[in-house]
């Protein structure tokens, strides 16, 4: 049984590592400015964790194999040097790893969530509710109308609770069920939730952020390729959670302008 266990550990280690290395299941293509640095950080972590995984699992397998061959009459052997070298090794190895990952990672995190938003960013207001996303573009006046929760009427198409009769800013707001953005232009989302917590996840943007009732959360990104991908909710929000999704369409500036015009005309 000892040798079987050692063999099992070795086989599981090699096969599972092989599947990672072959990238049989892997991240979808990245279409964002921050994506390459996130991917690079993930791959570096994968290599570091992968080496530790293979070395430690195979060490376990080898130790078990060798121990199972030991003769009963021989004395036990202490680990050379005792615990101190292991403590130093673990602290140094993992410490350096922690320091490196934290330093590089903090720069990526800053660029993704904390960097100032460029002034030319396209502003889109996003509301999440059970079980749909709605997007709002400010229209020609560049200003969003004020939402009123008590005026939300989904049956009547007033998803944000706008009051165009009394609010001039709201009159030209363009509300859509899908998010369209121009390629290579920064986009600033202002995210809020109508009822419970939801989340905005676009794997291709390498971006995820929760919507929290009571908070307006800014999120910015720049898409680098024309593409159509899914936006999915990743925070458990109720029975229709699995089906809460819509599309992100990244268009050329000209196509985006035309799309926005068509949406405005259809309001």
């Amino acid at each position: 049984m000892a040798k079987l266990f050692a063999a099992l550990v070795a086989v599981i280690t090699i096969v599972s590592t092989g599947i990672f290395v072959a990238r049989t299941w892997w991240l979808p293509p990245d279409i964002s400015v921050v994506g390459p640095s996130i991917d690079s950080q993930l791959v570096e972590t994968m290599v570091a964790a992968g080496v530790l995984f293979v070395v430690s699992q195979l060490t376990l397998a080898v130790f078990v194999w060798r121990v199972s061959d030991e003769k009963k009459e021989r004395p036990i052997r202490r680990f050379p040097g005792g615990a101190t070298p292991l403590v130093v090794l673990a602290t140094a190895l993992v410490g350096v790893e922690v320091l490196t990952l934290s330093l590089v990672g903090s720069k990526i995190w800053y660029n993704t969530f904390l960097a100032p938003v460029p002034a030319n960013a396209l502003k889109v207001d996003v509301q999440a509710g059970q079980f749909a996303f709605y997007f709002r573009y400010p229209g020609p006046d560049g200003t969003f109308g004020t939402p009123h929760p008590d005026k939300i009427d989904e049956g009547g198409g007033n998803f944000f609770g706008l009051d165009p009769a009394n609010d001039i800013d709201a009159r030209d707001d363009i509300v859509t069920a899908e998010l369209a953005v121009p390629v290579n232009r920064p986009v600033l989302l202002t995210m809020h939730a109508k009822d419970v917590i939801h989340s905005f996840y676009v794997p291709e943007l390498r971006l995820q952020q929760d919507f929290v009732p009571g908070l307006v959360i800014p999120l910015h990104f720049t898409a680098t390729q024309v593409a159509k991908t899914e936006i999915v909710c990743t925070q458990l929000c109720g029975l229709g959670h699995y089906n809460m999704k819509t599309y992100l369409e990244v268009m050329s500036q000209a196509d985006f302008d035309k799309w926005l015009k068509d949406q405005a005309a259809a309001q």
Partner: protein
Amino acid sequence: MTTVSTPPTVAHHHGPPTTFISKYVFSTDHKVIGKQYLGLALVAVTTGMVLSWYMRFHLAFPDAKAPGLGTITPEQYLQLMTMHGTIMVFFVLTTAPFAGFGNFFLPLHTGAEDMPFPHFNMMSFWVTLTAFLVLVAAFVVPEGPPLAGWTAYAPLSAVGSGSGPGEGTGQTLWAISIFIFCIGQLLGALNFICTVLDMRTKGLSLARLPYVTWAWFITSVIGLIAFSVLSSACVLLILDRVAGTSFFIPAGLVVNDRVLTHAGGSPLLWQHLFWFFGHPEVYIAILPGFGIISTILPAFARKPLLGPRVMIGCMAAIGFLSYTVWGHHMFLSGMNPTSAMGFSVPTLIITIPATIATLLWLGTLYGSKYRFTTAGLFCLGFISVFITGGLSGFFLAQPSIDTYLHATYFVVAHFHFVMAVAAIFGIFAGTYFWFPKMFGRMMNETLGKWHFALTFIGVYAVFMPMHYLGLAGNVRRYSSFPAEYMGQALPLHKWITIAALFTGAVQLIFLYNLIRSRFAGEQAPDNPWEATSLEWSTQSPPPWDNFGGRHLVVSHGPDEYGVQSPRGDYIMQTDPP
């Protein structure tokens, strides 16, 4: 063995039970309470596993009829998931390794006749059982159990039935159940701490306590803080639900076309309170496993643990750091993104004591004369699955990677390996090791080894592919994956489901072995493994007062193996100096 006559001051503070009720039901005997906890955990783990089978069945075959449930609806899936997570985390991973084994063996390890507050101890179990019954009562109320997940994020969990099926009475029962559970664990933790600090027999310094006893002690300290906070949070949640308060509900919510009148609360407050408990809870589940492995490994390696004080330091460091990392569950929650770095660094640092502990186990194995018993094999399996689960933590501790992997199956793989499978391997190791002491009979080793080998293969077959799903961006907590979304993942989901059903079925071998050995197993000697700690100095099973009135004197450390002695290659703690 050195003993002295029992002085009057240490005489047993409650007489031997005389009736069936006082002996087996409302018992104040820590050993009976330990068995009761383990029995509850066995019922709970069976329930939780069956629920996970239904979940996995639905994910792989969404249109097929599940036995007993028919075609599973999206809300049923979420209800199964919520109950699976809640039952497993609270009533299995907390009760079995900590309350179960801890109750039975902690007083034995300290040479005490019982815990200092036996009635609190009895109450702790019955309160916990009540919590379990309140939770499972949610299955029979209209609309069924809650669907908000084991984390019960507000406001979904706070605003009542309008937010979804099960969010009415079912969610209230959940909150009440967890509150009651916390009370039970606080009573238990108090007893554990006092037993370790005040009830040690003569000569038993803290340094001579077995590693698992240290683990239970540290876990108790963690639990005392963690469950206090969670119980308070549950009270606030219950008040939001039934008394109209707004601790977790902000103004202006429109739920199910109704504008709520609540105002002023914060959904993030629930997350902070929950995860302030929730992350230490991971260590409440796994630290007893650390202790069990550190205690059992030397017994089968026939050599002392490498770096005994370092191991205790690692467990204490993990216990301390566990309170500095809760925000890593909330990197993307809307919490100020700057604080993510403050939570990321300690999360990464906590891997240092965990890595040291793993290396110490490997160093102990090196050059040993390992006895490959079933318990010994589960120790080795623990090391393997803990390495696997621990390393995926490197990814999720980094906010910049979490932004992609958060809420995907990568997270499911991570916490199942490190918190569930590793802890369960620790429980299995403990069961095979201590069963002879608990019941006076040996478990069948052949069945045990089959159980180990098939379970080891099974857990890797189930949980390793979940890493691949997560890397591909497969979101967790979805009841189905239509072809246009993650359709390419369906074959992998089918594989996982088949592997999960297989691994679950393998547990029948364990169940059969457990029941058969209990009644027909070979009679166990007092010290079948030639181990050293105090429980092996008494009969199998121990008498009601543990040591038959003997007052033990301890002269040795907890793992003096690999030495020349009249016994062979080990010295028991009670042997003369």
